[in-house]
């Protein structure tokens, strides 16, 4: 129990630092800054208090917001992802998710990638819609969501296979 808490705190700090020091300055093709910290919601333990999960998500978003000077956009997107995660998991992993001994080990790769993709899509859609906040710029919003989303997804898949937790 204690171990997972420490691991998650470390993950929190490391993801914030990688996000603000590396990925926020990437500016790939002039506008793509992938938000890899979304992988936190993939890695976060499945069995846990949802309230604490949402609070952690809110804090994670807020810290990144303070660093990037766009107050509360990341926080809004993160807390929504945290709230929607159980529903997304039920959608991706089917009835297996409701069993007590569910873990990522007995899921297929396609299921996991779908799960990540939906999380990234929800997060980016909310982030860019509220960043631009104008229905007349809907094409710009979609362009940013899909371009950034695909890069984020690829990086998240890479990260998840690079640092896959062995014991969880």
């Amino acid at each position, binding site marked *: 129990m204690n171990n997972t808490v420490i691991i998650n705190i470390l993950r929190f700090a490391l993801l914030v630092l990688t996000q603000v020091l590396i990925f926020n300055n990437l500016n790939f093709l*002039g506008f793509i800054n992938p938000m890899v910290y979304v992988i936190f919601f993939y890695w976060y333990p499945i069995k846990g208090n949802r309230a604490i999960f949402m609070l952690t998500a809110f804090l994670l978003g807020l810290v990144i917001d303070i660093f*990037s*000077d766009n107050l*509360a956009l990341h926080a809004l997107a993160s*807390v929504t992802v945290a709230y929607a995660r159980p529903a997304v998991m039920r959608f991706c992993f089917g009835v297996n998710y409701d069993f007590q001994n569910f873990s990522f080990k007995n899921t297929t790769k396609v299921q996991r990638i779908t799960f990540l993709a939906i999380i990234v899509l929800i997060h980016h859609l909310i982030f860019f819609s*509220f*960043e*631009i906040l104008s229905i007349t710029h809907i094409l710009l919003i979609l362009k940013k969501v899909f371009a950034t989303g695909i890069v984020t997804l690829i990086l998240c898949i890479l990260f998840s296979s690079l640092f896959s937790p062995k014991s969880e």
Partner: protein
Amino acid sequence: MQRIINFVLRYRNAFLYAFFAFIALVMTFRSHSYHQSKFFNSSRWVTGSIYGAGSDVSSYFNLQEENQRLTEENQRLRKMLFNSQEDSIQPLDSTLAVYEVLNARLIKNSFTSPRNYITIDKGEEDGVHQDMGVITTDGILGIVENVSKNFATVQSVLNTKSNINAKIKGTEYFGSLVWDTKDYTEVQLIDIARLVPLVVGDTIVTGGMSSIFPENVPIGTIKKYDLNASKSFYNIDVELFSDMANIKNVYLIENKDKEEIQELEARTIE
């Protein structure tokens, strides 16, 4: 009563989500319409120090390029100095100079979001105040928004809230410089009357109407222009001189007469 409590308990996660989302939404909408938050911004000590440490490392990668650029600027300024014929005897008393110039280093740049803020490594202790103008070696960059002890945040010209007085070089036709968020190499100059003769390639400089920037600081060149919806003013696309994606050293300009001007203007409105 029992039912209400049961209801709240059953949907406690939804309520908690609504609560967090509400806080985040309030902050988001505030940031759209008001000034940057005084407390939560990257000029604070923790965020500033982390960015400072990161920039200490990354600044080594383009030292040579940056040196080259500064040398070229020095060369240009020296040329101007040696060739200025009119009485070059400047008053030695520095208190008589209207503009004070400080230098600073960028520790965080941003140009992809609709509201871009830049963080620099000089703060109150170095004499930085709110509303100082910020320029690069090539042109304009923005205005200081928040200041902490050792750091400051700058509202970039690439910010939908930015609105800077600008004019066409050599004339007195002035308008406002805004940004439509589409391209980080271009800003828009609006409110130039349609009878003004324009040529693509004309230089745009800061106007003398603001107490923040001195007159004639270069901004960019006219790339494209057309009339706006009312057909009485031009919308001009201005290509910026500063490469917003690649800035390291900046200058801060302070107008020492600013307080006097603002006080006078405030008194006039009353």
